[in-house]
């Protein structure tokens, strides 16, 4: 068990049955009252932020959570198969745990997998990926200033809105959080 004197940024604790990580904390003490730690925490499963005033001496249950870097190997029916980059152990994670962002998860990419009580509960992709365009309509030279876009496909099958000058074989940089095209980083 922890107590309030253990509170620091990144401490993982259980609150109301959910795992949280401490984001911010501050010593507060109302006149004539006990000391409290005003603690801002992020729910590791939902991302929701919670603020609690934890009284000095209050016992805090450690959250059994761990983040591991894993490499995405392949998809298999309802599962994705990942490999621990340090132990080489393979782990199967249901597709629904990864969710919609799988569109931006090409094979062999390294991701962060969050384990809670030994079970994979969340997968975080790198913020940016660089992928070749495998399918796109022909571009129109000189038409870069209009802001017009066209759809282009990357190997994962995701369709990205790209500027008209992008053609098959170009390497493009994509923000995995928004699915937006950022820039061309290589020419086909």
């Amino acid at each position, binding site marked *: 068990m922890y107590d309030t004197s253990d509170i620091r940024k990144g401490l993982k604790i259980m609150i109301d049955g959910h795992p949280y990580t401490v984001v911010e904390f501050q010593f507060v003490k109302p006149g*004539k009252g006990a000391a409290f730690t005003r603690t801002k925490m992020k729910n590791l499963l939902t991302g929701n932020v919670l603020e609690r005033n934890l009284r000095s001496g209050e016992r805090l249950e450690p959250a059994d959570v761990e983040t591991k870097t894993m490499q995405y190997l392949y998809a298999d029916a309802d599962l994705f198969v990942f490999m621990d980059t340090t132990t080489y152990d393979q782990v199967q994670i249901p597709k629904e745990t990864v969710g919609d962002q799988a569109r931006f998860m090409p094979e062999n990419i390294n991701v962060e997998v969050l384990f809670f009580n030994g079970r994979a509960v969340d997968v975080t992709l790198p913020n940016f990926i660089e992928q070749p365009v495998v399918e796109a309509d022909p571009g129109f030279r000189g038409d870069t200033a209009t802001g017009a876009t066209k759809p282009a496909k990357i190997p994962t099958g995701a369709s990205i809105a790209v500027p008209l000058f992008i053609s098959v074989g170009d390497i493009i940089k994509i923000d995995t959080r928004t699915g937006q095209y950022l820039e061309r980083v290589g020419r086909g």
Partner: protein
Amino acid sequence: MPASRTTLETRGRILRAIRGWFESEHFVEVETPARVRSPGQEVHLDAIPTGAQHWLITSPEYHMKRLVASGMPRIVQIGKCWRAGERGPHHLPEFTMIEWYRVGVPLDTLAHDCEALVRVAFRAADRDPAVLGAHVPFRRTTVRELFALHVGHELAGDESQGTLHVLATAAGVAVGSATAWDDIFYQVFLDRIEPRLADMGPTFVFDWPAPLGALARPKPGDPRVVERFELYAGGLELANAFGELTDPVEQRRRFQEESRVRAARGKPVYPIDEALLAALPKMPPTAGIALGFDRLVMLALGVDRIQDVVPFAEH
């Protein structure tokens, strides 16, 4: 980050202006011992030991009350106090307190003093107190009003701890493992009321529940609360004032109860100040107050961290 040279110059000007104000009000500035045998009984204040059976004061109140009892009707002290383990954006283990006593005045006189001192500090800092959203007189409210408004429950002040626990839980406050009356109260206060005070402009909160009485006397006509106010301004708890308890029997009972709680929680128990108890019967009706000087400087300068208004913040 410790205070800049400019900040220290302003702090010095505020200090001089405050001394001048107390002089104009005919106060005698006194200096009482910093190293004492009885640093206080309060459950949540821990003193810093200094040599055998001595501690640094957490507040100068015991000795100052003895001076009042000896016949000094208006005294002020501006000096250091020490509280072990208190460190945060509004707390340092060593800080500067302004403490003053007025004989024979109602508690509200001290509220007027606070209004004057805030004005004096802002003027010395060359800033306009209007930035606080302050209208003079400052807003005056009570713990009961704040509870009704922000917790949605009436709080008379004489609830049992069981009733208070039910009230807090019904209001959706996570009281955790708290069982003591004051712990439950302050959980509700911090969760629901204190954040709202920050937006209210300078506010005096009067009439605290009797279990939080410490050294305050029961309010005549309503003994479920005590004669006490706290001044909040700019998100800071600036001052705490009491209509001073002068009944030595009741004061001894409270000291003994607090010592018992300290012992039960495994905290050091300090000797009861017998000289203070012996002096109380000679003490006339008095209002007394402590105001955090560092916090007043923070307020006048619009600074968020106490570390930014002292020259050596690591202390």
